[in-house]
């Protein structure tokens, strides 16, 4: 029971990171694909503005997952990190680049600086979710063996399941980001950006759905146990729920109900995370290590629950305050296209496109 509760905390962290963290990565994706300075400047300005106040808090969910995992499931943690060291190291390096380049871009003085920093930020925003997703794929497809670097360092994360999950991580982030950014653009009164992000959300939502469903075929060959888990029992329920939430989101975005779409889009992602957990139950590291075997002793597990529980008393209202202020627009900065700072205002700025 204690082990399940602690796993619940890990899943909570993963789900939160898969929604909030991925949306930040997705924003980077749109930044990367926004086009030239002038055309992309407006989009990038919105990305910069939306992400600035929240990305650090969103990032902490990852830390949360790590620390709970190494306390409550130390053997699994050691095995995962020593086997999957390549994607995890690359993700960590990506995290340095992304965070730094992002804050630096806010201070860039010339368009060239902004361009280099922006490229760095945006590129790492695509690579990080891919590598993290690939690492998860290695776990889910049973390629991490228990022991110090016991699994294969390459095929554990370069395999069909890993690549699939990596790609889905990138796409679903982009999808979430587009939905969130459309809402933010609406609040900032930028109708052209609303249109731009709406189109992106619709396209990306459809693409993510197709890849996810098609991906089930990949899983059937490459990770049959996972496939079985996802197509029966609780796993199946979650997959269906996710598909429904995803479809609902598309409909809501279509009708420009971005406020509600935010939540259904998030729900679609959360369902997948939960579905994965159910699919590989009772294993933490399939096919060897079960949750109960992996769990630390009861004293530690209850300490984690007490510690985090007490922490939540402070953390939950703080988080609420932050997102409340953000969603109310109280922390909003003046909107300006990213390239604006570097050139004089012209008439066409009033009427874009």
């Amino acid at each position, binding site marked *: 029971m204690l082990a399940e509760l602690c796993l619940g905390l890990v899943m909570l962290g993963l789900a939160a990171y898969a929604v909030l963290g991925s949306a930040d990565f997705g924003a980077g994706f749109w930044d990367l694909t926004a086009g030239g300075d002038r055309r992309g400047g407006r989009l990038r300005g919105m990305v910069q503005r939306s992400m600035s*106040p929240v990305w*650090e*808090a969103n*990032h*902490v969910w*990852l*830390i*949360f997952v*790590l*620390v*709970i995992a*190494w*306390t*409550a499931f*130390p*053997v699994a*943690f*050691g*095995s995962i*990190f*020593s*086997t999957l*060291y*390549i994607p*995890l*190291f690359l993700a*960590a390096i990506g*995290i*340095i*680049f*992304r*965070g*730094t380049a*992002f*804050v*630096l871009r806010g*201070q860039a003085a010339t368009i060239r600086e902004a361009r280099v920093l922006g490229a760095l930020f945006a590129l790492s925003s695509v690579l990080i979710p891919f590598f993290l997703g690939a690492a998860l794929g290695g776990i889910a497809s049973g390629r991490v063996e228990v*022991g*110090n*670097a*016991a699994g294969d*360092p390459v095929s554990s994360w370069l395999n069909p399941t890993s690549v699939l999950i990596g790609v889905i991580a990138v796409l679903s982030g982009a999808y979430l980001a587009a939905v969130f950014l459309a809402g933010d653009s609406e609040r900032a009164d930028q109708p052209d950006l609303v249109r731009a992000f709406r189109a992106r959300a619709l396209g990306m939502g459809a693409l993510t759905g197709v890849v996810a469903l098609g991906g089930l075929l990949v899983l059937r060959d490459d990770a049959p146990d996972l496939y079985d888990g996802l197509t029966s029992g609780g796993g199946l329920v979650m997959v269906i729920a996710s598909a429904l939430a995803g479809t609902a989101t598309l409909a809501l975005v279509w009708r420009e109900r971005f406020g509600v779409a935010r939540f259904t889009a998030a729900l679609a992602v959360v369902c997948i995370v939960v579905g994965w957990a159910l699919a590989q139950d009772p294993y933490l590291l399939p096919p060897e290590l079960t949750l109960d075997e992996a769990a*630390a*002793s009861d*004293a*530690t597990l209850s*300490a*984690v629950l007490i*510690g*985090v529980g007490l922490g939540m008393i*402070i*953390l939950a209202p*703080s*988080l609420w*305050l*932050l997102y409340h*202020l953000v969603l109310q627009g*109280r*922390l909003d*900065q003046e909107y300006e296209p990213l390239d604006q700072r570097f050139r004089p205002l012209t008439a066409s700025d009033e009427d874009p496109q």
Partner: protein
Amino acid sequence: MAGPAFTMFAQQVVETLGGEHQPDTVLARQMQALSLAVHIPIVCFGIAFPAMIVFVEGLYLRTGDLAYKALAKRWSKVALILFAVGVVTGTILSFEFGLLWPDFMATFGEVFGIAFGLEGISFFVEAIFIAIYVYGWDRLSRRAHFLTGIPIVISGFTGSLNVIAVNGWMNNPEGFDVVDGRVVNPQPWDALFNANMWHELIHMYLAGYIVAGFIVAGIYAYAWLKGRRDRYHRTGLVVTLAFASLAAPVQVVIGDWAGRQVAESQPVKLAAFEGVYRTQDGAPFTIGGIYDKDTGEVKWGIEIPKLLSLLAHHDPNARVVGLEAVPADDRPPVNIVRFSFQTMVGIGTALALLGTTFIVTWFRKRRLPRSRWFYRGVMAAGPLAFVALIAGWITTEVGRQPWIVYEVMRTDQAVTAADGLEVGYVFLVCVYLGLGAAVVWLLRRLTRRPPATEVGAPVAPARDEEPS
């Protein structure tokens, strides 16, 4: 285990994951040390800067003087940037625990992990409020804005408490039993509040104020020498200098406490601080010199009789345990540890003197010192404090060797069995160099912007004549 015994026995554990270990741990240790040496100086700002900012904002609320507001706002932007860098470098550290030391985590994660859980929550709170604080300027009411600064200060403290608790635990492990070489019966709360935590915490916390305070003060001291002495620059100088100067003399006292704690819980480490080979009564303190492994003597040092016994145990004739108490394999590399220790103590003493000069002048004469040398001293103090910080950590960490968990697990038992560390190492060095260059570049850009841009109004340009 400890105590003034002549021979000490380690109670070594068997590692949980096992497997082929690296032939040597140098690369992994270097990577860990490098990442820490990047993270720690940055988080000094996360520890100390918020308190200074909130203080200056308090001055603004009391006086309504825009110069204070401009200063607090400018600093809060710097703090946000440094916070971001602290976040990413801290993330690397968390990853490195698993990437470099999987068996340390697998074997002991359940014992000390809880501390990091609480640390995570603290930094969560810090991240939330720092965002609200920085983006909330002029958008929240003045009082509400001021209040959102306070959780940043508190969570910086509790976050540090929890990480430092882990380091204290590695140095003085408790809260578990070893049965047949296996770690059993973890008591995470005992591990968290271990006997080494308190001195390390306070010492590190003060170090945060000393490092951040003197580095920022150094920038304003430079401006001062260049003749920029308006209220804005003057406040920047006085506030940072005051925080650092108050902390510096106290640091010496805490350092003494730390030394006594080490003498008690890690006598061999203390022997390495001082290059004491033979266990002896009334041990001398040697300044400078080089420890010679073959003879067990310190050559070319200046010896002060009985001082070490006096410092370590507050009794000139007390017995000090020497390196000979443990087999050669269990001794840390003496010269590195000793040199670092002496560097820290030397710098610490100098900073305490500098700080005292400032405090005394300020309280007796109600003005800043006049000598240009004082300002040059302040400019030097920042880099020196940084050196002392790193030296202190080298003292603690290398002094713990060859153990990762003191007398329980060896560093080479903990290390990863994966290959490719060389590649990772080179990569990481390049990344940190780039990161350092980028941050310096950014901060210089920020400081060049005139203060008025922060408040959209001229900031009391009048030269503030000092009351004399």
